[in-house]
């Protein structure tokens, strides 16, 4: 979030970050131990195929960048009516009261800085056509691993049984 605002606004601010982190920190409270876990969820513009913000904008200030596919705000045309904030189902468009304009994730000209600076790989930037592939592959491999282990576990047992019978 600091990287986002620094890169895009030229100043650091959590409230002007275009990516937001919903936090459940679950600080300890005496005598209460909730079941819920420590959770951080990153929220940003989905760059929707059918973008409501783009549809509702009365001045046509919200357009799609052909190169990056990002839905971007043309600040020369934006009149600050904030209808896009109302229309966005994800709360991913915000208002920068200091600069009197709406801001949203525009994918940093195709090289999202949040992804670049993420030290753990929790964020990734993938083409939408193939984003699901590594995920499916990882799951499939886990199944393969489990099966291999199951088979390996079974072999000594089976052999023992066989030895006992012979």
């Amino acid at each position: 979030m600091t990287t986002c605002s620094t890169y895009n606004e030229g100043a650091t601010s959590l409230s002007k970050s275009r990516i937001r982190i919903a936090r459940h920190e679950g600080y300890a409270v005496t005598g209460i131990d909730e079941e819920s876990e420590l959770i951080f969820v990153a929220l940003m513009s989905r760059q929707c195929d059918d973008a409501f913000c783009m549809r509702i904008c009365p001045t046509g200030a919200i357009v799609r960048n052909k190169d990056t596919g990002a839905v971007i705000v043309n600040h020369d045309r934006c009149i600050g009516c904030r209808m896009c904030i109302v229309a966005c189902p994800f709360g991913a468009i915000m208002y920068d009261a200091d600069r009197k304009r709406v801001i949203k994730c525009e994918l940093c000209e195709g090289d999202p800085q949040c992804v670049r600076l993420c030290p753990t790989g929790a964020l990734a930037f993938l083409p939408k056509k193939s984003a699901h592939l590594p995920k499916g592959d990882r799951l499939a491999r886990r199944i393969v691993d489990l099966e291999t282990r199951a088979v390996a576990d079974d072999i000594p047992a089976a052999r023992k049984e066989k030895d006992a019978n012979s």
Partner: protein
Amino acid sequence: MPIPKGYAGNVVIIDLSKSEAQILPTDKFWREYDVDPRLWLGGDGLITKILWKDFPEGIDPMSTENEIIVATGPWTATAAPQAGRAMLGCISPETGGFSSGSFGWYFPATLKYAGYDIMIIRGKAAKPTYVFIDDREVSFRDASHIWGKETGETVRAVRDELGERYEGEIRVLSISVAGEHLVKYAVACGDATSCPGRSGGGAIMGSKNLKAVAVRGTGEIQIHSPKGLVDSSYEAINRFLKEEPTLKIWQKHGCTTGLATVARWPLRGTLLASNRAAADFPHLKNVGCLNCFNPCYHWLQLKEGRHAGTRQIGGHMTFLTTMLRNLNIEDFGEWVYYERLMQELGLDPASFSMNFTFAVDLFERGLLTLDDTDGLVLKRGDPDLIWDVAGRAARRQGKLGDLLAEAQGDLARTVGGEAVELAPAVKGKPSIQRDPRIQALIWSMGYLTSPRGGDWLRTHNTWELAFLPGNRDTYPEYIGKSNLELYQECVELLDMPRNLKKQIFGDPPRVDVEWIKGTKGKMLFMVWTENLVGLFNSLVTCMFGAATQFMMVAFGPSTYAEILNKITGWDVTYDELMLVGERVFNLQRAFNYRLKGWDYRNDRFDDKRSREPAVMGIYKGRTVPWDEMLQEYYAIRGWTKEGIPTAAKMNQLKMHDVASILPKLT
């Protein structure tokens, strides 16, 4: 002078006696306190300057005069790595001298986004109060209904009452029962997660009837070269992830095993690892403060045992070391519970466990009787007993609780007689995690010269620990290198001028058993380390960026200079930054000398045993050459043989005002 980029731009001074807050521009404040930001940065530098001006004479730390200073720095809350830290300072309730402690999570950054580089709290509220800093608005609120609540409940109550719009919007620095009962080592705690440990800030907050400070910050911080900063941070983080040789150990076991792994420190580290395996980590997730690439918090939830269900964001080293060594408890579940308990009660685990173990010694020698302990038979290794005593100390219940709530020096004097010569303290503050074998001479010397009394956090340097024959070779398992190979690599990676390396490690610079057992170059290395600590505590950034495994081969002054220049637009260099650290350390020394008269006579362990021939380790049968080493150290520091900073040194460090005052003090 305009305020450089990277600073929030304001200072808030809160007067609890009058229920008034004064907000003034940071540059005006700097002029009042004679601060050139390039010479002092922020954090510890500013705290030291403020204390130096406000307290020319000693005070009763628990009196209304004392103040709490929370100081961020130009690094804090920017896009720089590990930007979540600030320092909390005051006159120490334990020693009566200088005190400060580093803390993080999100309170410091949020304070800066609210527009403040520094927050100073003065006076005393007439009744329990908490303060809400809502960007530019500061309000004083009644805290009668939360007085008596423990840490987590306090945070929850304050956030609910102020109506945060999403979780984590409002950040709370609060005290618990220990602070309210003026336990001398009570800590303040940020968001029930990060405490400026060993600072005694909780006791001072309690003495001011201040239950909590809540802050909401929605502003922004100007940056000189935004894209340059993002690029430099990217490079620094990636260099770290690629080069830091002990990262894997850290990621797997966190800072808790840092020492156990680096050296055969008597921590029983393998025990911990096997205990850990039995515990349940829902995600084994590590979490950190703002912008942390190397987080130290572990998310723990106990599945089995009598504390099943307890969860804790923590798993920090001090809890482990003090529990194993001072309390003699080995169970993993108890360890997690201990951290949770200390946090909830608002006790500093270091001072509490040292006072407890000291009381056991006194009890066993008959210096404390059953009458003094309210009928309790004091012993180590019994968690039920110890957790019970912790509760008593935090609330000053009974004779024992009241006794243990005091600073160790005072405790020893109250008991009197032999006890005074037994207290394992320096300047009245118990010295935790001491190395009985004196394998780590630098580490051990660090207790003596620390401006805040007995701890090593201003000299955390474990370079000597891993090489001695017989020490466990822990590295191969993780990185396929022997300890000696790894340490040789660390000598290369150390961000230090080649000349200095030659002076410390020989020519060519190398570490071997001879170096470890000897004294050559050690005091020089110690001075360099102390200056480095003074530097990153003034930026403010986290010690774990500079010293993951306390090896100082990650972020060094070069990285700090590069990133700081992007933030501020300055052109500071390696040498200039190291001078900041040296300046801060020297002023802390001068401050303590002026306030308390501390000199070479106070640079020693209070217990007689430390000054007698050692019974184990390198100096077995011999006396550790404390005084010889101190003389070498003073000489390098440019101080007198009595350990007093000289006017010449002060002038050299551009502290001409201090230079003119010093001669009048002797």
